[in-house]
């Protein structure tokens, strides 16, 4: 008989001012749904785009403010921030930093979403997802210029999920955030205007595999809860550090949770969805997903592994090292044989997940009183660099077109450098950044993760990582060869003239990539001063 007496309830204390960026984005997303319901159709897309952009900018400004107002905690290791929302969220340096980069990614992606010049005044998303491709309904939707302006609220909901995921301090919040992050993305993947079948299949695949992996994550949470009796990361840490038995359950819990997280970051062997989804999804969505999901999921993974299971790092480290190696290797090797730009970028993202994992397994938390780049800050920096460059790269992909929409087959990119050197130059720059060539942000990023790994004592991994980067460089270079040193086949690709939106995105990505390569100082300092996780 469960007692009917209710325990006394206290109204929870929520740090509204510190959590404002989350509320802003969530609020704007909800407002977007209202706009969707009441705004006249003719100008709805524009209204949604403006709303989303303004909302993201507001949140970004607020994030900066929040970051400056984080309290410093002088633990043995520097940290800043606090545990808020009754222990559900941790508003700490790394978390708020990640909000910042996520918002920047989102801002860039929103601009790409809003691009309508490429399809002759229509967005990259299908007018009415319910219509079958080629049906009368679709033709009607096109002629009436019906558009899915819901993409903006959906993306913002996903963004809220990402932000939550990056700063959740208990596993339940984390799971909810994971789903909030994923569900809108599943939908967004399936509504490309061109090549709908591909897009829908991508959505289906992403959905089924994503749901499957999140169930693993969830079962891991359940086992962790069974082991520790709490969802709070710090409580789990205590339970893990003082454990007396139940090691098997703990290991199973870690394994299952890590599987879920590795899926999201696209690490081998849980990467199989990545190329298909990257290829099938509408390119602006791919850009958003590639940059955002990876950043959020990595932060969550860092939190889980460092904060909750830090006491058991000797158990999970060898496995993650192995995964890092095969991820880097497979991502690099398989991408060489790709013939599709988006698939190639997908494999490159896999390889990058591997490099990020290298930084992670360093498990280097720094030494008190010493300025040395830690695993967390190296990953924070890498994520920013990778995200910006990959959004830029996908933005370029949206511009290279033929009569059937984007032309992503690599052979069609031949000679691009001759017909439009600026665009090809930008793409080449992103490739160089991915390859980690100096004077690009990618180099500094790679440098920092390798440093963190070496500081953590896994220098053989650094050597492997370095060799794999050379391997990976091969296919980036191959693309450059194709664009600049090969003559175009037939008429060659046409490069659509974008509106200012895409131009701004590409330009920003270029400037950021070069800027972070030459003067990475400010961002690197930011990543470093974000400090450790607050427990």
């Amino acid at each position, binding site marked *: *008989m469960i007692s009917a007496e209710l325990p006394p*309830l206290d*109204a*929870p204390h929520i740090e509204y001012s510190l959590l404002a960026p989350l509320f802003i984005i969530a609020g704007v997303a*909800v407002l977007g*749904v*209202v706009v969707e*319901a009441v705004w006249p159709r003719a100008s709805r897309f524009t209204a949604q785009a403006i709303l989303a952009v303004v909302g993201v900018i507001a949140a970004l400004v607020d994030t900066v403010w929040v970051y400056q107002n984080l309290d410093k905690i002088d633990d043995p290791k520097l940290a800043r921030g606090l545990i808020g929302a009754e222990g559900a969220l941790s508003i700490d340096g790394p978390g708020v930093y990640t909000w910042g980069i996520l918002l920047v990614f989102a801002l860039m992606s929103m601009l790409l979403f809003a691009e309508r010049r490429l399809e002759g005044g229509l967005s990259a998303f299908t007018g009415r997802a*319910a219509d079958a491709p080629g049906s009368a309904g679709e033709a009607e939707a096109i002629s009436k210029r019906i558009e899915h302006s819901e993409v903006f609220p959906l993306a913002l909901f996903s963004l809220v999920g990402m932000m939550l995921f990056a700063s959740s301090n208990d596993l339940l919040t984390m799971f909810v955030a994971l789903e909030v992050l994923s569900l809108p993305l599943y939908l967004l993947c399936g509504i490309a205007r061109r090549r709908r079948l591909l897009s829908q299949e991508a959505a289906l695949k992403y959905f089924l595999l994503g749901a499957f992996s999140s169930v693993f994550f969830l079962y891991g949470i359940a086992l962790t809860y069974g082991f520790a009796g709490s969802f709070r990361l710090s409580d789990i840490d205590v339970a893990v550090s003082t454990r007396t038995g139940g090691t098997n359950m703990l290991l199973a819990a870690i394994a299952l949770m890590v599987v879920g997280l590795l899926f999201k970051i696209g690490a081998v062997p849980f990467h199989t969805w990545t190329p298909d989804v990257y290829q099938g999804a509408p390119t602006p969505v791919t850009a958003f997903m590639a940059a955002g999901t990876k950043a959020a999921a990595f932060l969550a993974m860092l939190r889980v592994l460092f904060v909750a299971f830090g006491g058991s790092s000797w158990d999970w480290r060898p496995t993650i090292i192995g995964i890092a190696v095969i991820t880097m290797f497979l991502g690099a090797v398989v991408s060489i044989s790709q013939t599709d730009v988006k698939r190639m970028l997908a494999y490159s993202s896999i390889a990058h997940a591997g490099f990020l994992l290298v930084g992670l397994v360093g498990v280097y938390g720094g030494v008190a009183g010493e300025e040395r780049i830690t695993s967390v800050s190296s990953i924070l920096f890498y994520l920013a660099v990778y995200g910006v460059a990959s959004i830029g790269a996908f933005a370029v992909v949206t511009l290279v077109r033929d009569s059937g929409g984007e032309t992503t087959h690599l052979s069609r990119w031949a000679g691009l450098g001759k017909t439009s050197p600026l665009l090809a130059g930008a793409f080449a720059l992103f490739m160089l950044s991915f390859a980690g060539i100096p004077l690009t942000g990618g180099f500094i990023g790679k440098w920092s993760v390798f440093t963190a790994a070496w500081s953590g004592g896994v220098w053989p991994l650094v050597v492997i990582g370095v060799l794999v980067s050379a391997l990976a460089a091969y296919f980036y270079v191959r693309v450059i060869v194709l664009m600049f040193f090969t003559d175009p086949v037939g008429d060659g690709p046409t490069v659509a003239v974008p509106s200012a939106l895409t131009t701004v995105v590409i330009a920003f990505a270029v400037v950021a990539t070069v800027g972070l390569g030459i003067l990475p100082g400010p961002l690197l300092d930011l990543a470093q001063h974000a400090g450790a996780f607050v427990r």
Partner: protein
Amino acid sequence: MTVYTPILVLGALAAGFAVFSILIAPITGPKRYNRAKLDRYESGIQPSPLPEGGGKISVRYFIIAMLFIVFDIEIIFLYPFAVAFDSLGWFGLIEMFIFMVTVFIAYAYVWRRGGLEWD
């Protein structure tokens, strides 16, 4: 002997009755074979073969099912709130109001987009 035992007892009685009825029917009833009788009923015309999976069903049903899920979830969250209403204070009221408004916005969206139309 928990609070659930009576439910099971009553359920067992009902189940017993239902199964008994099902079992007894073929015994008590007559059997007169007639091919047409075993075909499905289509108002007297020759039954056409049913398409696989039951054929096409209006997508409206799916929408209704999804909407139901959304609102059922809302209800699930409203109930504990309602029961603990007095001890939650103004905070609870406001939070729940926000929650309901959020769901209501989704509802308004579906309405405006014709999700509630039957045609």
